[in-house]
């Protein structure tokens, strides 16, 4: 019941955040200088045709009416229609989510695989050269922006060595229904790598400090006292305890990874959410901007929710806390 209550509270906070976010997004996007009708019609458009187009797009309605129309539709999964092409925004955004998701999910799966061993090594051997090396490597990775890493990777692996394509994207299953796994992977290697370099470096720092903390805990010393090896004690008690802070960081990292992906998509010309967002902003296709930002906010909130809920799974103490 108690963990049930915790879950209920979390869900409530989630829904409220989503609602507040939708208002904020709507207001900010609509306060952007520049007008979609002017942007569409461009040069030489007379005021009459601009007014005409605004009316056709429903932009002459009061702000409040437009907000509720948009938010109401959103509850049914309908993000509206693009001002520019009249296409459904949901249909426009859905394939983009897939592209960005590949990038983010693959990076996030690889980053801990690099960071956990590296971070543990840095913690366990922190007074020897191995630990110092691990720390230095992560420090260097941390100080390189993802886009810069991307450019360097392209110069080395695409321009000089010609092992991989410089940019672009191939769907796993192309328009004709043909599977293209090789091309799909080739196009993702460099963008994923440039995200992983930064992400795993950040994560390594956190893993290291989480484990250093564990090493000085009483339960760790006790485990050692009853004859467990350092690694076994660390594995048995350390991982779970360190996991709380590492999972928190992974949750936060996922959010920054989404933003990082937007930049990396530009460098590698990947048609994901970031590319779609930038072109919609440039064209003042505000309804598409609202839709994409909403999707991003939704993703971040879901990640936070899952992070919160995962504490309950990882740490039995939290489950029992409310019972007292």
């Amino acid at each position, binding site marked *: 019941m108690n963990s049930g209550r915790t879950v209920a509270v979390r869900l409530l906070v989630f829904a409220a955040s989503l609602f507040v976010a939708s208002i904020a997004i709507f207001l900010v996007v609509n306060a952007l*200088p520049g007008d979609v009708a002017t942007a569409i*019609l461009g040069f*030489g458009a007379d005021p009459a045709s601009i007014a*005409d187009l605004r009316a056709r797009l429903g932009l002459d309605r009061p702000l409040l009416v437009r907000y509720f129309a948009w938010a109401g539709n959103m509850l049914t999964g309908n993000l509206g229609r693009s001002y520019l092409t009249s296409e459904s925004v949901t249909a426009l955004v859905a394939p983009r989510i897939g592209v960005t998701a590949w990038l983010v999910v693959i990076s996030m799966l690889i980053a801990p695989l690099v960071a956990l061993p590296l971070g543990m090594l840095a913690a366990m051997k922190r007074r020897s050269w191995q630990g110092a090396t691990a720390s230095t490597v992560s420090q260097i990775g941390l100080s390189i922006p993802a886009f810069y890493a991307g450019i360097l990777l392209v110069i080395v692996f695409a321009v000089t060595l010609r092992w991989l394509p*410089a940019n672009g994207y191939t769907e796993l299953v192309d328009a004709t229904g043909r599977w293209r796994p090789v091309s799909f992977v*080739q196009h993702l290697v460099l963008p994923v790598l440039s995200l992983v370099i930064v992400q795993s470096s950040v994560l390594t720092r956190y893993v290291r400090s989480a484990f250093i903390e564990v090493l000085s805990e009483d339960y760790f010393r006790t485990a050692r006292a009853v004859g467990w090896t350092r690694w076994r004690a660390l594995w048995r008690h350390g991982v779970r305890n360190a996991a709380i802070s590492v999972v928190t960081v992974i949750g936060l990292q996922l959010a920054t990874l989404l933003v990082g992906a937007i930049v990396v998509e*530009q460098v590698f010309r990947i048609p994901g959410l970031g590319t779609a967002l930038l*072109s919609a902003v440039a064209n003042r296709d505000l309804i598409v901007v609202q839709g994409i930002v909403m999707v991003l906010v939704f993703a971040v909130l879901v990640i936070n929710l899952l992070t919160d809920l995962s504490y309950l799974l990882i740490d039995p103490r939290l489950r029992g806390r409310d019972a007292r």
Partner: protein
Amino acid sequence: MVSGRISRRALLGGTAAIAISAAACSGTSTPSATPKTLSVGATLEPPTLDPTMSDAASIPQLLLYNVYETLVKLDSDGNIKPLLAVRWDVSSDNTSYTFTLQQGAKFASGTAVDAAAVVAGIQRMRTSASATIKSQLAPIAEVSAQDSSTVVVTLSQPSNAWLYSMTSTAGMIVDPATTDMATKPMGSGPFAFSTWTKGDSITLAKNTKYWGTPGRFDTVTFRYYVDPNAMITAMLSGDLDIISNLQAPQSLSQFADTAKYTVVEGTTTGKVTMGFNHSSPALAQLKVRQAICYAIDRKALLNTVWAGHGQLIGSHAAPTEPYYEDLSSTYPFDPAKAKALLAEAGVANLALRLRVPVTKYATDSATFVQSQLKDVGITVTIEQLDFSRWLTEVFTNGDYDMTIVAHVEPRDLVKWADPKYYWHYNNPQLQALVKEADAGSSDDYERLMKQASELLAEDAAADWLFLLPNLVVTTSAVTGVGQNATSLSFDLTTIASQ
């Protein structure tokens, strides 16, 4: 009356950069009986494919002459040539045009391009939402089919600009069966629209029913690179065969290996114009405008901003426009004279706002201009605006003193005759010249427009900083890319690959 049209995207990117590649990304599996493919990379992706909805230059770049055809087209020297019309006869009073249509021309759908379809096509454009197209077609009084292969267009007044605009977007003949121009364009060109992967590329397929010389490629893919360096690395890594119109001329040296690459350099119609707001009190004075023109070393600016590629023009005309002459020495670099003129005008401590769209040529030029004007005692504050904001605040609301934008539309000098246009330039003498030129014979047109161009230069109506070059980089396999970009089309019909 109005012929020139500036396209918002065109302004942003200059004439959009294009790259071409034989499709293969390294390592992708290609079947042995490889279909002939071409990958054309460009800078800006069209926001929509409906040219009646949007002025984006990326739309004619992709569709004009390739997917949509026009009655008449512009050749590589900027002359009007037959396309869907084999010939046209003009009445003695220059108000009635009789077009004789190409026999056997068909849309990609198989429907004949007959007189009825052409009439329907012109009528469709006349009801366009784009005010630009509407005004270009405004001289038309009536369009009718005389018989199945003859179309008669009657104008309410003679207009040289009208026939010219029929070579551009306004003249595109759309298949009458088209229902969705925004995502499924249908025309009669050598290529037909195939697929659009948003944020990435648009693919055209060979129109197997094409009436003329068939397209030389089975598919042509336009790939869009927002970042010019991404396009360059794609070229260097072997993903591309051609970069047409390089947007980073400083990187030209990377393609110096003549065994691998060919560099073609020509002209565009992209006039990088530093416009003055003529309703701002200081800039309404001729001496102040002249002082600014004298104060700027445009040769040095071109070297700094565009690595010396491009040329100085001095007025609102490009070499591929019929009324062009070199007026670049009207105001040679002379800071002392600039200071003297400012003193004569009684202007001291002049402060001006230079509000530019965020695009490389504009922001780089702005910095250069700022430092040179400082030397003659003019304080310039630079403000960079994203293009939509620029469009609303500078272009529509006229809230600026000076701005820098490339006017890429061919033959757009006529914009200076519109006092409501964002420069607020109101010169009755120029307006009379432009009007007379439009209504006159073709000789009159050239002569009078030349006078108009000279008048603009002498009046220092703007400071034309330079003309954007057409910089094409190709691999040795590709041939036939036009040296000069005379229209907004990236014309695929001349391009071949070994």
